[in-house]
């Protein structure tokens, strides 16, 4: 039997969801704290330690470990052969987990309250930076595993079309290597030596520029598995076919190529970069909206096909005809809804001029909770329900609880994030633990804060149901048959695809050139300008 990665996949997935649960509890504490209604629990030290931990767990731990676990299963199940090197997969897991624990200690003890963006010159304990770097290094080993699995399969199956789910997973691995280089350079050449006292000063403007290199495409690193599930699992589970295999490949390629060289939309308000390069990055940022818009079409079309096959009639009848008792179908539809809402918000953030009105307000925080916590994470949860039987050989403990949990997740996320966007439009700044401002705005903010507490509570309840269901599923009834062939079939299954849609050589070349154009001069300029650096500061 070729599936030799079940244990390592499961290990990664459990680390992901354990981190997820801890982070949710912290999230509820934060929203309650910030409302100002419970002065007994208010503490700046605890709040900012909590936010830092919450951000690292959700943004780096949940995501990386989920992606690694899902990737191992995909490699086995689509390529129908053992992992390229299973020992290395365990090395990746150990390094990543070791790094996570190393970073968690200062985080949880208040020695790394620098938030998940860790902008200098605020300085955390060096163990935080080293731990975070190890987590990334572990993920690089996973990338190697994914790439080599595909490369060796292609060598042994010349001329064959790489299965779509593995093509997407490999695209994600390559994109992650390109984009994580930015934060790796920041860590290795700035933050780690500086926090260890080996360097007296560093340039915070350069640090922000390097981090921006990673900051956009990392969200696509997170989003890719959600899209992979939408393209290659959801259509079949819904009872239909994938509308277009080729368009899915094109979407993956566009995400790989465009999402890295566009980080300056995170730096629109920064003084160390100039208008010209900000404008250039804006153009690319609007380009990267295109694969998402294409994905929306293809996935909706696939679902419509499934609905009509089930008897749905009329313009919208196919929606009701879908199997709403199936967790993946529920998650897919809710994810698409939240993608539309969050996506339009994202376009405002990406706007060269309008960003001024929302930058570093709570609009941004509301946006990424909706698009990440909503669209991406709900697909992670549904994919977990899909993977568990395949990895354990047992049925999900309660399918109906899974469906309810997913609905609650989306509803809770909407209750949480809609007022959050409004708070941003009403001028509330980001990253505050309370609102001691001498302004009538504070009273205007208050009802929205309260609504957000309700959202947070619903999300915590939903997360509880999720973890409970998965735990119970380890002891549920075994299944007679577990199939590794539950991948969606395209309406027109490709018998062959152009080399450029079966590999990545051309796209790597384009990324390399585009990165030199988009980041070359901006980084070199900072090295030449040599702005006086900053010593470490505590918080």
């Amino acid at each position, binding site marked *: 039997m070729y599936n030799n990665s079940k244990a390592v996949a499961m290990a990664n997935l459990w680390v992901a969801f354990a981190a997820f649960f801890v982070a949710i509890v912290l999230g509820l504490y934060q929203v309650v704290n910030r409302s100002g209604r419970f002065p007994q629990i208010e503490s*700046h*030290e605890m709040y*900012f330690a909590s936010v830092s931990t919450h951000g690292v767990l959700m943004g780096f731990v949940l995501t990386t470990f989920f992606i690694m676990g899902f990737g191992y299963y995909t490699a086995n199940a689509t390529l129908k052969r053992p992992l390229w090197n299973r020992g290395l997969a365990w090395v990746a897991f150990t390094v990543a987990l070791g790094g996570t624990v190393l970073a968690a200690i200062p985080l949880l003890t208040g020695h790394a*309250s*620098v938030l998940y963006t860790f902008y*200098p*010159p*605020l300085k955390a304990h060096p163990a935080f930076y080293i731990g975070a770097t190890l987590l990334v290094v572990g993920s690089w080993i996973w990338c190697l595993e994914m790439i080599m699995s595909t490369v060796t399969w292609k060598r042994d199956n010349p001329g064959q079309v790489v299965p779509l789910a593995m093509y997407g997973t490999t695209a994600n691995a390559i994109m992650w290597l390109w984009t994580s280089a930015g934060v790796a350079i920041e860590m290795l050449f700035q933050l780690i030596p500086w926090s260890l006292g080996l360097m007296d000063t560093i340039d*915070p*403007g350069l640090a*922000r520029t390097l981090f921006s290199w990673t900051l956009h495409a990392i969200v696509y690193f997170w989003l890719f598995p959600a899209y992979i599930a939408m393209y290659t699992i959801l259509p079949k589970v819904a009872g239909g076919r994938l509308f*277009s295999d*080729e*368009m899915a490949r094109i979407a993956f390629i566009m995400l790989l190529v465009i999402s890295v060289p566009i980080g300056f939309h995170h730096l*629109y*308000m*920064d*003084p*160390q970069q*100039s*208008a010209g390069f*900000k*404008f250039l990055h804006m153009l690319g940022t*609007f*380009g990267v909206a*295109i694969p998402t*818009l*294409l994905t929306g*079409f*293809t996935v909706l*079309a696939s679902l419509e096909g499934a609905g009509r096959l089930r008897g749905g009639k009329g313009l919208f009848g196919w929606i009701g005809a879908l199997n709403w008792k199936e967790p993946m179908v529920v998650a897919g539809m809710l994810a698409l809804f939240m993608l539309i809402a969050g996506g339009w918000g994202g376009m405002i953030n990406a*706007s*060269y*001029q309008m*960003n*001024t*009105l929302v*930058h*570093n*307000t709570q609009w941004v925080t509301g946006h990424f909770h909706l698009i990440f916590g909503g669209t991406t994470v709900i697909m992670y949860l549904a994919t977990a329900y899909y993977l568990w039987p395949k990895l354990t050989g047992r049925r999900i403990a309660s399918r109906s609880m899974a469906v309810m949990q997913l609905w609650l997740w989306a509803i809770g996320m909407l209750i949480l994030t809609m007022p959050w966007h409004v708070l941003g439009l*009403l*001028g509330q*700044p980001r990253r505050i*633990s*309370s609102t*001691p*401002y*001498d*302004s009538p*705005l504070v009273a205007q903010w208050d009802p929205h804060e309260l609504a957000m507490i309700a959202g947070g509570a619903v999300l915590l309840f939903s997360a509880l149901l999720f973890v409970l269901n998965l735990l119970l599923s380890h002891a549920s009834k075994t299944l007679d048959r577990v199939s590794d062939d539950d991948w969606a079939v395209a309406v*027109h299954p490709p018998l062959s*695809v152009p080399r450029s849609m079966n590999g990545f050589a051309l796209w790597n070349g384009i990324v390399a050139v585009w990165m030199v154009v988009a980041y070359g001069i901006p980084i070199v*300029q900072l090295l030449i*300008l040599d*702005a*006086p650096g*900053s*010593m470490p*500061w505590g*918080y």
Partner: protein
Amino acid sequence: MHVDPLEKKWMYVVGFITVVMVGSMTYAAIKMNLHPPSNVEAIDPKTLHLSGEFTEDKLGATTNEDGSITVRMVAARYSFYPQMIEVPVDTPVTFRITSPDVLHGVHVPFTNMSTMVVPGYVSEVTTTFLKEGEALFLCNEYCGLGHDYMWSKLKVVPKG
């Protein structure tokens, strides 16, 4: 490669949306001169309080020859200095802000005054306030445990 005709139509719609959005931003940048703050200028955070443009006696609002206003401020834990600024309404105001300590960000709600303040660099933003009254400068980037308390007052007063 086979592309469904409906999908082809959608691709044209997507292209159209993209062109309209990018076109409007390009127009606003070139014709209306609307850009995010983009002055690149270095300064030494360790000595800016001792000599030069940002010593304490030079902070605040000054009127330029053409009637526009230049406001020099320092963002430092945990306030913006001077803590109260008065500027006339309907007049171009250029803010020059820098930090001697850590990262800050500042925005005035309901206006387009917004910028990051990065130690080692001088941020420059030019805007015109259209409404008289009292407003707040709010720090919007985490700068330490006192970040919540970092704010200052802006008064927009009648011209002349």
